[in-house]
């Protein structure tokens, strides 16, 4: 799929959803090749959506926001999702599950310096700042309210035990875009909030596990035999941050080799998958809604994009309830 295909699909969605008047805007126009979507339904048990699906949904939401803002006479700027960057983010999220990756340890040591910013501001962010700087205070205020909704609006409140409470807007262009994309926005917002807050309880279950503790103890014994005395990989990583690069890489390689030798990360991955299943069993509604609503939205976008000469069916193409 190309970016223009994606844009076409979104236009079809918009045309089918409502008789909208889209005004011209000075927004970013994506031109880079788009990722081929992988339907979330292809991995029915997964809570991690494929990067291609996440990119597709994120770009669709932004395009819908841009359209919503344009109808109100405003510009909205966004950078199309960089699939490589999204994959790198996912790899970073899973880094602690793959501490047995010896080639990576040899290349990167324990990873980027933790205090270093990952990147500078994006082109779209710079465009937005320049655009807003050119607006009068009244217009800027109106732009922000068009995007975020009015202060005092009703918000979708989702409380996650042990984590906190998220409140999502029900007015403004973010809300409108998510309604169009997912249909049952309130249900999606609850599911999305819960699923994206699962990491801490999953991690806590893993680290309480006797198998995890035993695997980490075996790892500690192994690295100790090589002259490195650490009780956990976190201790080793902290130590590495004080070393010269070649020494830090040498330490990372030793710890990764021991990890592979004693099966520590292999045990970690197995326990992580098990704890994720347990989490989904404790939150069956949210887990099922997350999979279903994202898969349906991705399928609608894919169908609208891949059907040559497809004329959108007003009853089918927009998200139900939008």
């Amino acid at each position, binding site marked *: 799929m190309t970016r223009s295909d994606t844009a076409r699909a979104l236009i079809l969605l918009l045309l089918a959803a409502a008789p909208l008047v889209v005004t011209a805007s000075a927004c970013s126009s994506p031109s880079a090749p788009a990722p081929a979507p992988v339907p979330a339904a292809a991995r029915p048990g997964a809570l991690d959506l494929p990067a291609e699906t*996440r*990119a597709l*949904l*994120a770009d669709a939401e*932004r395009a819908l*926001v841009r359209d919503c803002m344009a109808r109100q006479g405003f510009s*909205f*700027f*966004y*950078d199309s*999702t*960089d699939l490589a*960057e*999204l994959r790198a*983010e996912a790899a*970073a*999220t*899973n880094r*602690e599950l793959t501490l047995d990756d010896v080639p990576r340890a040899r290349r990167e040591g324990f990873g980027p*310096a*933790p*205090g*270093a*910013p*990952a*990147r500078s*501001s994006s082109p*779209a*962010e710079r465009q*937005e*700042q320049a655009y*807003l700087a050119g607006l009068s205070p009244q217009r800027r205020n109106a732009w*922000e309210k068009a*995007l*975020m*909704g009015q*202060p005092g609006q009703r*918000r979708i409140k989702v409380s*996650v035990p*042990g*984590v*906190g*409470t*998220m*409140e*999502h*807007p029900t007015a*403004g262009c*973010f*809300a409108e875009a998510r309604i169009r994309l997912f249909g049952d926005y309130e249900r999606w917002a609850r599911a*999305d*909030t819960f699923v*994206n*807050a699962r*990491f*801490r309880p999953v991690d806590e279950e893993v680290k309480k596990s006797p198998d995890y503790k035993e695997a980490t103890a075996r790892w500690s014994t192994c690295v100790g035999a090589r002259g490195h005395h650490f009780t956990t990989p*976190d201790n080793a990583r902290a*130590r590495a*941050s*004080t070393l010269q690069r070649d020494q830090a890489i040498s330490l990372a390689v030793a710890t990764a080799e021991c990890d592979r030798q004693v099966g520590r990360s292999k045990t970690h991955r197995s326990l992580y998958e098990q704890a994720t299943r347990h989490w989904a069993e404790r939150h069956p509604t949210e887990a099922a809604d997350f999979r279903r609503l994202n898969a349906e939205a991705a399928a609608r976008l894919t169908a609208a994009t891949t059907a040559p000469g497809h004329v959108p069916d007003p009853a089918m193409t927009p998200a139900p309830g939008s």
Partner: protein
Amino acid sequence: MIKKTVSVASVVGALLVGGVLAAAPAQAVPHDCPSGNYCVWTGPNHTGFWEKFSWNSNLVPGTVFQADNSSFNRMSSYAMKLHYQPNRTSSSVYACSRPGTLWYQHRPAEQLASLSKVSTC
């Protein structure tokens, strides 16, 4: 030594990424947060002091770190992952805040310690 390294990195990071401390009005509203930023308040319900962040950041001790936080994602097209440990360790993700989302987290839960800016949740 380790603690010192982290602390220096935190301060430098905050300076580079624009973590700016501001005194909020007594009854601050989330919309005080400038567009393009992720704002964190020391008090619940967006009260007290607040800081704005536009990039990956450690929350520097002495400001919004270890406070009874509330926050608001006022970025247009980026999400922010919230971590309860510094340095954005991958296993310490609390939650992911999409654009336009408010977040409240109250004691006795562990505190918001660092932020990582991502393309999408």
